[in-house]
């Protein structure tokens, strides 16, 4: 068999198999990983009285675009782990084309707060207004790991962040402050 035939057949097999995998990863939308469809989000928004919308939502910022940048602002995440019981407030900023979350404040289980050092913990690389992907920094047994994560907006004041790092995973609920 000619070498060129070998090359073309092999490339064909590679492209076919890799293409299928990418198609099923990015081309097929499964509903089980999107807890709240966009339509429900808008219903929730409509039902919520205007007065109940948190005042700290950064609408005052002229650069804020409510259609595309609903993540900007302060978000609180409650933790109840062996290492940490309490909550962390993160500040999400839009930097270039990505959203970065920085630690802003630590709150212990008794409600005492302490200013955080502003460590970048989460980078949301893709966000379509309701779902997105990013890289989350987690600490496990003293080691820092950068893991792929997914976020899904439940309503305009809540989103879930989920990750699964070789079986070590979690789903966190981020509430707007």
């Amino acid at each position, binding site marked *: *068999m000619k070498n060129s035939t070998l090359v073309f057949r092999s490339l064909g097999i590679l492209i076919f*198999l890799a293409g299928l995998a*990418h198609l099923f*990863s990015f081309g*097929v939308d*499964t509903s089980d990983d999107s807890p709240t469809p966009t339509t429900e989000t808008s219903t929730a928004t409509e039902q919520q009285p205007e007065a109940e919308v948190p005042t700290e939502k950064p609408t005052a910022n002229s650069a804020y675009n409510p259609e595309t940048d609903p993540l900007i602002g302060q978000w609180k995440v409650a933790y109840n782990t062996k290492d940490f019981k309490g909550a962390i407030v993160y500040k999400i900023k839009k930097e270039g084309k990505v959203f970065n979350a920085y630690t802003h404040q630590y709150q212990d289980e008794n409600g005492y707060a302490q200013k955080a050092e502003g460590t970048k913990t989460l980078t949301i690389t893709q966000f379509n207004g309701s779902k997105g992907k990013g890289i989350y920094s987690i600490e496990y047994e003293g080691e820092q790991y950068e893991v792929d994560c997914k976020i899904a907006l439940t309503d305009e004041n809540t989103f879930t962040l989920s990750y*699964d790092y070789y*079986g070590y995973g979690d789903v966190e609920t981020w509430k707007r402050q």
Partner: protein
Amino acid sequence: MIDFLAKKLEWLDVHHWFYIFNDLSLFYIIIPFFVLELIRYAYLKRLDKDLVLDSIANVITFGGFFLIEIILGILAITKVYYWVYNNISLPHLELNWATVICCVLLADFAYYWEHRTMHRIGIGWATHTVHHSSPHFNMSVAYRFGPLDAIMPIVFSLPIVMLGFDPILVLLSEVFVQVFQTLLHTEIIGKLTKPIEFIFNTPSHHRVHHGSNRQYWDKNYAGILIIWDRMLGTFEPEKEKVIYGISQPINSVNPIVVFFHGISRFVKKLGQIKGFSNKLLAFVKPPDWMPKQ
């Protein structure tokens, strides 16, 4: 069907299934099958000292290979694979049935090319000849490895990582292909039904691969699917009775001799070749290549 294939999987479940196939198969299929083979050898009055010592040598070579594999594997996975995965790969793929199946098929295809390369370049054959040097054919032969056998799989699986597959999934898929290969090293199973023989690599096809009969040289490189050989022109069916081993037998069951004979023969060959560039060429040229003097 599409929803099933695209359904997101949990790492714990994937690990669990690979653990059953890759790790536990040694206990529920490979060892019992080898015992069955020993009983068959005894029944056929072929169970002699040479066969027993040969089998022990096989397992000892696996120990040497495994040590090198562990060191290289840890280095490759933690450093090279993840560097490639994080810096020069396509968008990272989700963990779903489709990506797991595609990854296993790609690992199988990579195995075909890696295996073919091991046969067709000097340094590859210097290490892989160990696997082929046994005059017997049973499950213990599957564990007969050469000292550098762990290197090629790393090189050939890197493109799969570059395609966006998770390095751990790639590693698990490679081991899965190896475990499937192990099951093919037997004389007990004859030819299977035609559709299976057409699509899958079978003991019959793999006996051919281990044949020292001239028409069987460099044939049937497949891991799981024999269709790769059919598509790429290296398929040969089992017709003539297979004579196992290599064209220059080592006639030894000493594990050290078995493990290093390919490398020592290659070093001897390099000593006979004149000129630095020719010596370098001997690494990548076919095993029987010698420069024109």
